[in-house]
């Protein structure tokens, strides 16, 4: 009987100690924890348009897509994000289009302005237009993780493959790293 009580006592002591250990680790973690949520995002300033966003996402169709900052766009006729570098004419013919999936739509607004819109259904996030726009234009086209598609994996497969280490975890309240006037949307809330 005495032995049994002693064992019981030891056991309950060990149990308490384990509970304290778990609680301690959890407490330490809570001490540095964020009440919010973190999501993956690509910093366009670091992006080198290597195409790995298009091929390294766990989804068969990448969660990274091109976005367009309309406030930065020059609405050019000769758009280096839309047209092949050597394009001889500026029409929408496939031979002139830079985008491999034809995801950029070109609409005439008024002379000499054209609007460029990304069809997200078609965009695969390869970043070819981003490079073109960044080289010659204002850099209004850039890549961003689309959070309606992103599964927010604990270890993002693209982040691991990113040669420029441009991916980081950002708070879910400001889930995009935007350019131009659109960036003000978050700036105002900070």
């Amino acid at each position, binding site marked *: 009987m005495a032995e049994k009580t002693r064992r019981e006592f030891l056991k309950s002591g*060990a*149990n308490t100690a*384990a*509970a304290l250990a*778990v*609680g301690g*680790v*959890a407490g330490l*973690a*809570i001490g*540095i*924890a*964020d*009440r*919010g*949520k*973190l999501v993956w995002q690509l910093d366009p300033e670091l992006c*080198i348009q*290597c195409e*790995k966003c298009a091929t390294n996402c*766990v*989804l068969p169709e990448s969660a990274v897509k091109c*976005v367009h*900052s*309309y*406030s*930065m*766009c*020059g*609405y050019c006729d000769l758009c280096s994000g839309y047209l092949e570098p050597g394009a001889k004419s500026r029409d929408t013919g496939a031979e002139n289009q830079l985008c491999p999936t034809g995801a950029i739509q070109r609409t005439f*607004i*008024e002379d000499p*302005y054209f*609007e460029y*819109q990304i069809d*997200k259904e078609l965009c695969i996030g390869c970043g070819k237009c981003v490079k073109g726009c960044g080289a010659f234009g*204002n*850099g209004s086209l850039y890549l961003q993780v*689309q*959070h*309606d598609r*992103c*599964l*927010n*994996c*604990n*270890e993002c*497969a693209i982040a*691991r493959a990113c*040669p*420029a280490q441009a991916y980081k975890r950002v708070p*879910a309240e400001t*889930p*995009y790293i*935007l350019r131009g*006037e*659109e960036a*003000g949307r978050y*700036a105002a809330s*900070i």
Partner: protein
Amino acid sequence: MLMSRFFIHNVFILFILAHVVFADPVQRFPKPDFESGYERPILQTPDPRALTLEYLDVFVLVAALSLASYFALRKRSRRHIFVLMVFSLIYFGFWRKGCICSIGSVQNVVYALFSHAYAIPLTVVAFFAVPLIFTLFFGRTFCAAVCPLGAAQDVVVLKPIALPGWLNQMLGIIPYLYLALSVLFAATGAGFLICRYDPFVGFFRFGASFNLILFGAFMLLLGTVVARPYCRFLCPYGVLLNWMSRLSRKHLSITPSDCINCRLCEASCPFDAINKPVEAELHEKREKSIRRLSFYLVLTPVIILASGWGGSLLHIPLSRSHFSVRLAKEIKLQDEGKLRLATDETDAFRASGKSTSELYAEARDIQRRFKVGGWIFGGFLGLVFSLKLISLSVFRKQEIYEADRGDCYSCGRCFSYCPVGKEGVDLEKLKEKAEDKAKFG
């Protein structure tokens, strides 16, 4: 029109002032005037899943754990556990795509403790700690019906075979190795190994790399004959759960009252987690047993030191898994002319304008961390091996059929085999058992 532009311009200046950054002039350059009254479209930025839903996940976790514990300890119903398990598989697996799960959360916690740059979300801490706490009270009910990885394997168990005891014991070491390695990687910032090689997450998401799908398919196929291979021989979180479960206040028992040693449950556990009665007699001289045990006890510090040293030896090959170390290596080889090709990584680095000495310093610091971590990693494994040897040298008498507190997943399969009721042997039930066939295996 003019007004709106004026406004925008000012918003910009405000933005720049607020950030005090040297903004690219392009960023704040005014846009063209449109005479046709063209309105600029608004950039669509779909929001991520709401934070409240993340807290809902924690709530579901707690609720599922409570139910699982209730079903296993009170209700003693495999059927209920099974239904809850399927729910968890659908919710945490296919709905939440297996991310974040408690298994992976170990790394988040370690990473947060070792890296100042990472603020771990509270929900992740909950996913790490809550199952451990529940296990401390009720045993591994998390494994039984909450973990989506366990559930995915549990539903494919068809014709489980018993593995030889020694193999079971030996493979049981792997989770310790995996846990130690994952913690080392997370602590040094080299990545999340557990997530990287999670075999089932590819199915949950309907997408992963080819190799990962292959690995997952292999694990599931294997799982039809070797029940829950991941849980038993890989799962690093299972190590922690095992420890907690051994110390748990309450635990599932095969029989609701006293065991009558009827042997009916003997082969009911597909996970070899039922301790069978063992005769008290020794097969060798008592002195020999004691000598062996003391030998292992004395050897323990030696083993720990030796394997600690072995672990520290590994710091160079292991550190190569870290991005910066690899990059530093490539930059160095390039500078030495041994690597002719530039990679995207080296190009990106050279364009970043960071100095090589900075990179080398960072890489060396990571190598140093791996060295210190290697000692701890090796020492831990040495301790695990020693304790395993010691536990295999201690002989304890066992009189009844009993679930192994560490290894039992509280799945409740054994319940239906036990003819004993709460009030002792139930002859009616015994008869029923003999005639009827178990439905949930």
